[in-house]
């Protein structure tokens, strides 16, 4: 049986592959934990930002504020789409699912900003209107992400588009990541809800304790100006949050994909070993048969 050696060779190569996928699975698991850790360490900053915005609200003396980042407008009729994908492959259907959603929602009013190599490749191949392309390190820092959001804000101020949305993979749990569309600009009511609630609570508390009115803090510069400065930080923060979440999704998707690959490889090795043993036995039986029939011939 000539294919005995072939089977042995295949078993060896499958074993090698499974070792690699196993290692990648472990690396992805570590990176996922790290990505989640970073996302958690973002929280104190985010809640403090809400606090400050809340104080500003309480001291402004009016409920609604006008700022370009808060208003719907219709100047250029364009929408910028920030597509956050991974830099590397081997993470299951993660990028494919996300990009399918992006393409489905595509029309002539969209301009694209790709974050991550996978998104760029697809968008460039489909000859979409790609405004900019960013690549990120494995562990993106706030300043990396700020480069992107600053660019987005600048183009927004120039009036190149009226709205910005993010497509990213929302992290539900290790097994589930959902492609999600998130409107970044105009800043939605949900983002400032906490700040508004804090502000109103503070104002009513101030009214209850003194009749002088809700003036608590001094501001440098004015509260209105300061809030205008603060709003871009919400954009910076939101984008950073989404990038971190995408990273966590990517690593967990890769971990699951690699676990499946390892399991498959193990099953394959099992099947091949069985086949190998069968072939080996068959060849031994054959040999015995040959020897015994030869002996029988001689005995005659």
């Amino acid at each position, binding site marked *: 049986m000539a294919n005995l050696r072939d089977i042995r060779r295949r078993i060896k190569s499958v074993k090698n592959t499974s070792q690699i996928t196993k290692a990648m699975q472990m690396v992805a698991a570590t990176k996922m934990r790290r990505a989640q850790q970073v996302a958690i360490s973002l929280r104190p900053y985010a809640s403090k930002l809400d606090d400050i915005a809340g104080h500003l609200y309480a001291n402004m003396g009016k409920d609604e504020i006008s700022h370009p980042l808060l208003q719907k407008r219709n100047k250029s009729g364009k929408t910028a789409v920030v597509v956050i994908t991974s830099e590397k492959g081997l993470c299951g259907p993660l990028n494919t699912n996300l990009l399918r959603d992006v393409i489905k929602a595509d029309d002539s009013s969209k301009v694209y900003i790709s974050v991550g190599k996978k998104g760029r490749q697809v968008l460039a191949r489909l000859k979409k209107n790609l405004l900019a392309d960013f690549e990120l390190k494995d562990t993106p820092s706030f300043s990396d992400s700020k*480069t992107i959001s600053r*660019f987005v804000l600048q183009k927004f101020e120039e009036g190149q588009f009226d709205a910005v949305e993010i497509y990213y993979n929302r992290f539900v749990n290790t097994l589930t990541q959902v492609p999600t569309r998130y409107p970044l600009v105009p800043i939605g009511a949900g983002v400032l809800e906490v700040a508004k609630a804090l502000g109103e609570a503070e104002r009513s508390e101030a009214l209850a304790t003194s009749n002088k009115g809700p003036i608590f803090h001094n501001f*440098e510069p004015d509260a209105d100006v300061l809030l205008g400065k603060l709003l871009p930080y919400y954009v910076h923060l939101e984008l950073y949050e989404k990038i971190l979440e995408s990273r966590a999704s990517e690593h967990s998707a890769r971990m699951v994909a690699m676990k499946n690959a390892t399991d498959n490889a193990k099953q394959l090795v099992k099947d091949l070993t069985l086949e190998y043993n069968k072939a080996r036995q068959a060849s031994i039986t054959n040999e015995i048969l040959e020897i015994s029939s030869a002996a029988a011939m001689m005995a005659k």
Partner: protein
Amino acid sequence: MATLKLEILTPDAKIFEGDVDSVLLPGAEGDMGVLPQHEALITQLNAGELHIMHNGKTEILAIGEGFAEITATTVNVLTDGAVNEKDIDEKVAEEAVKRAEDLLKSNTLEGEELEATQASLARSLVQIGVKRRRRS
């Protein structure tokens, strides 16, 4: 003596938390010293040096732009990034400056790349400034 509770937060981590005697902040409208019983104030910060004074010792941090919330007993600083003077490696910062300057000189950068490089140049220069001042 009364102390201030100082907290410095960046998106990546909590850089500093503790009681201090006074703080010097790089405010958008000029540097300001903050002592306990300061009036409540919210202000914008520029990139610059933040001095923490405690028990006669001064600690200097290089911070990015951000915001500060001051009350009679607390100071909360929100900033893009903060580096302790002790952790600044002058050589590394100098190399970063050189790299950024070279890139800017070569004029091949455009748009957002140019901006990012200028920003990183500014950051590194602040860091070097902090280190040098401390030494002289």
